[in-house]
């Protein structure tokens, strides 16, 4: 079995997924890979453009902080030089940056790479020892592996897609005897109609019911119903679509919302040989079901922590049986009575928390409280890293004190600027490292106040 002991996070992934601790990795932050998995699936009716936003498409830069000097990272543009200097000043050795040939605002990093003949030419010239470690593996990343002559560190897209379905999560939980929210898996319109009938009784008792796309991006593709009328409307839309297309397939789960006290995200690594390493558990900060960040350490009792770790090992073993290896994050909740629903959904891919691991290991002093969060602003003009660092001033993280706001992605700040004279959405990702919760909250307020000089908070 893989001996993960004494290995840092990425070394464990490297060894577990490639069998060799010295394998160079080519990191690819294809965040929202779910869009690829959802292609040709029938979920909750969607409207609008399915392309990622310009900001989301630049979350590729999160992968910069995952690798070390022997690794590579594919990015849509070279990082802000001031940001690179700042990271090096923290003592971090960084992967070599491989930039795509162009950067179109709403094109994912994978598709940008596929359209980059120069980049692919460079990758093809390598000696074949490096492996691609994407955020998650879909057919688009498989195509990149083929064209670039780059073997993958992860199993096939078909395996990844299967185990990332929320239907798979629910069925695995049921088979493993893991506590599960009341709900139903629906693979046809008829199954959905039957589930709505069952859900109606819970709505009548004042409960809330969610309908989730089996392959939805985290926090998206969810319809929340607090009355039967909502489910009836949704049923009508789904039925009309099936009649129009002659296709009654569906991939959704219907769940009765639990009485939640806190969201959790825990993380483990599955090796090719079925070994499972528990990595960490963090509190997930959400707003209206949408991911907003993390807080750690998670405020759990020893019994709750033990239950999470035990569940991680059982799910990991099950994923290995089904052919998956690589990083895994699981969403869970603490209920109002202190009990756990330890498996809401399996994300057999990198998670936002994955990208915090290296900084955590190298920069964050033991015993710290960390709030990892995002600050969304409407910016009238681009903001260079040096200006942001000046504005943050003494709130910016310093290695010598081990305290402050550590910037863990900067490309999302200026991603929206396609025309220089029009305002755009920008997003700052910061890890607030503090000695305790009160200090973290005060730092949060200071950072929000200082960033507001650049634009209106969203």
């Amino acid at each position, binding site marked *: 079995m893989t001996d993960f002991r004494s290995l840092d996070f990425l070394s464990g992934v490297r060894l577990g997924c490639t069998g060799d601790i010295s394998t160079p990795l080519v990191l690819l932050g294809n965040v929202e890979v779910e869009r690829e998995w959802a292609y040709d699936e029938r979920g*909750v*009716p*969607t*409207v*609008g*453009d*399915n392309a990622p*936003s310009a900001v989301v498409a630049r979350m590729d830069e999160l992968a910069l902080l995952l690798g070390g000097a022997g690794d590579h990272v594919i990015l849509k543009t070279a990082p802000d030089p001031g940001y690179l200097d700042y990271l090096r000043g923290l003592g971090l050795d960084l992967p070599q940056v491989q930039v795509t040939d162009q950067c179109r605002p709403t094109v994912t990093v994978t598709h940008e790479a596929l359209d980059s003949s120069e980049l692919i030419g460079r990758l093809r010239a390598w000696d074949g020892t490096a492996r691609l470690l994407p955020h998650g593996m879909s057919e688009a990343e498989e195509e990149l592996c083929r064209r670039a002559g780059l073997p993958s560190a992860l199993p096939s897209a078909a395996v990844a897609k299967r185990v990332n379905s929320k239907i798979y999560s629910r069925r695995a939980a049921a088979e493993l005897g893991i506590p599960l929210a009341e709900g139903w898996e629906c693979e046809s319109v008829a199954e959905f109609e039957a589930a709505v009938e069952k859900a109606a009784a819970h709505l009548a008792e004042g409960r809330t019911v969610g309908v989730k796309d089996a392959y939805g991006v985290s926090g*998206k*593709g*969810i*319809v929340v119903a607090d009355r039967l*009328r*909502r489910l009836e*409307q*949704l049923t009508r*839309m789904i039925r*009309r*679509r099936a009649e*129009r297309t002659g296709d009654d397939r569906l991939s959704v789960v219907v769940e009765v919302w639990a009485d939640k006290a806190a969201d959790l995200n825990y993380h483990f690594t599955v090796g090719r040989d079925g070994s499972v390493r528990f990595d960490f558990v963090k509190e997930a900060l959400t707003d209206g079901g949408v991911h907003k960040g993390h807080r750690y350490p998670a405020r759990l009792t020893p019994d709750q922590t033990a239950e999470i770790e035990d569940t991680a090992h059982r799910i990991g073993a099950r994923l290995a049986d089904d052919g998956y290896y690589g990083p895994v994050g699981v969403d869970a909740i603490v209920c109002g009575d202190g009990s756990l629903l330890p498996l809401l959904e399996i994300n057999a891919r990198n998670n936002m928390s994955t990208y915090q691991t290296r900084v955590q290991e190298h920069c964050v002093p033991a015993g710290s409280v960390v709030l990892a969060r995002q600050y969304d602003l*409407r910016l009238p003009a681009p903001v260079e890293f040096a200006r942001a660092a000046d504005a943050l001033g003494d709130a910016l993280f310093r290695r010598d004190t081990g305290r402050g706001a550590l910037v863990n992605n900067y490309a999302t700040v200026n991603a929206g600027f396609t025309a220089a004279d029009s305002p*755009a*959405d920008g997003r700052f990702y910061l890890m607030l490292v503090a000695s305790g919760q009160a200090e973290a909250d005060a730092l949060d307020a200071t950072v929000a106040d200082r960033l507001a000089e650049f634009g209106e908070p*969203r």
Partner: protein
Amino acid sequence: MTTSVDERRSDLQALVIKALEGVLGKDLGQATADTKLFEELGLDSTSVLELLMTLEDDHGIEVDPEQLEPEHLQTVGAVCDFIAASQAEA
């Protein structure tokens, strides 16, 4: 001079903005026909679905989501145009 067409249009825009306020849970007193739904209001594909359901609930305006194209969702005014065209066809 204000025409009845202008008034109907103004009423429809007020309904759409009120429905958006309910979906997004915030005051949109500054919203106009030119306000962009995704960029400025932060709407996403799921909240658009909720917007359609709210319009149906509160005002009997029924819209099939699958008929909506991205251009119908650019601005508050574009949504109003689409609803007006749908109602004229019905």
